[in-house]
């Protein structure tokens, strides 16, 4: 709606009603974020915004502000066609590299994810499925067996991490039998520092990160700082 429509909408509700609705939207995002599930705008409007859709843009303005100022989080539209939103962390990961470069809740799965993202990054963005499984086997995580901490490893990697948008799992065209490969997902692009990954690889292989010159250039390219890459934050109307 136009700004005059928003204004008319605002007349329908008191300021504290809009605040209340803002709080509900924030709760909704936080609950979804526990599982790292992207939020679809249509669902948000249907289940939470409801009769407040006229003032959607005003509510989202307040939501953005609160996430920024209180939680240190940023609401990002990762899919502008289907209008999917995720929360990413605005705070710098603490020094010390390793799994700490992946932000969000501390979780044993995070370490596993970090390894997979590292392999993909070092292989320039795409890695065959079989390479990932072999890497994990070397770390005594067998995708064919139930893991004490991760449960069904294959499901975790190809389903959970994919739904959370940490990984993309895509069919390699023209393969027979069918083969799949992994890419970084949009959430990883936004949340995970490539420079930290490279430092971690450097420590692991006792090698100066700069010797991987292509990766080093990509990791230190200007738009790669967390939270500032392409997908834009959106506060437009539904």
């Amino acid at each position, binding site marked *: 709606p136009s700004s005059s429509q928003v204004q008319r909408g605002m007349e329908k509700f008191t300021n504290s009603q809009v*605040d209340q609705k*803002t*709080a*509900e939207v*924030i*709760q909704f995002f*936080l*609950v*979804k974020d*526990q*599982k790292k599930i992207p939020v679809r705008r249509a669902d948000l409007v249907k289940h939470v915004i409801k009769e407040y859709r006229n003032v959607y843009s005003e509510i989202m303005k307040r939501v953005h502000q*609160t996430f920024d*100022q*209180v*939680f*240190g*989080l940023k609401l990002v539209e990762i899919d502008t066609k289907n209008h999917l939103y995720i929360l990413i*962390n*605005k*705070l710098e990961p*603490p*020094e010390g590299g390793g799994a700490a470069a992946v932000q*969000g*809740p*501390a*979780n044993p799965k995070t370490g596993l994810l970090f390894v997979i993202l590292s392999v993909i990054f070092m292989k320039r963005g795409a890695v065959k499925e079989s390479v990932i499984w072999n890497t994990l086997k070397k770390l005594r995580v067998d995708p064919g067996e139930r893991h004490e901490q991760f449960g069904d490893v294959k499901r975790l990697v190809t389903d959970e991490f994919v739904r959370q948008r940490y990984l993309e799992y895509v069919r390699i065209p023209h393969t027979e039998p069918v083969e799949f490969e992994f890419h970084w997902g949009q959430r990883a692009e936004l949340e995970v520092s490539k420079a930290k990954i490279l430092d971690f690889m450097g420590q692991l292989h006792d090698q100066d990160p700069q010797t991987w010159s292509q990766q080093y250039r990509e990791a230190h390219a200007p738009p790669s700082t967390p939270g500032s890459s392409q997908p834009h934050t959106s506060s437009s109307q539904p």
Partner: protein
Amino acid sequence: MARQLGDVHRRFLQSMMSNSVLDEQQATALYQNCCDIHKVQSIPDKLDDFIDNINSKLQPMFMQIRKGMSEDNGHQFYALVNMAETDVTRMSSDYADNELELFRKTLDLIVSSENGKISSTDVLNIADTLTTKKLKKSEAEQVLNRLVQDKWLNEKRGEFSLSVKCIIEMEPYIRRMHEDQVKVCHICHNIAFQCQICDSPTCGIKIHNPCVATYFKGRVDPRCPACDEFWPHEIPGIYFYFSTYNS
């Protein structure tokens, strides 16, 4: 008006969101750690002021970092709580509707019980009475196991009681739903489930087991702090308590 939050507060809050419950020592260490990361001077013994500052900004979202006591060992714990009327939001993504109903009914049963504990048989009997969708005994047993695993309930020798996380998170809900049945500890003034009750018919005050231990520690002639009658219950003396609240 509280001061603006800095990244040090935001980092602390983020950790509270990803950890369901922290004991006092862990929360203090986290505070210290956040201060170190952001090169801010931490102030000893000011953790609660630091948290109050965060809480003032959380209030419009009906959220709060709350403190509560474990009824088992008397230690203080912190948890981030949703105070909104929608009772069990944080659980709603982990449990199905009928599982939540089982939990709510278990909670009700514990609240109205004499000593804050109920047997697994009591819980399994509720499984038949669910209005959302009935659970088989074996399914209800699995839900109970998950509730213990997720630290909503404590289980000891086949008896279930409320965990400290559950007490901190559910207190607003319990106070709302059970206004007439809520017991309050005479010593620490917090809500009380597992407690001792004064025998004298005109008194009947309640005291948490850990509070009993602190209060009567070293007294040869234990008497009720309200009516001065002899306190006939067993005084647990086997624990050491680091009592940090002010009564």
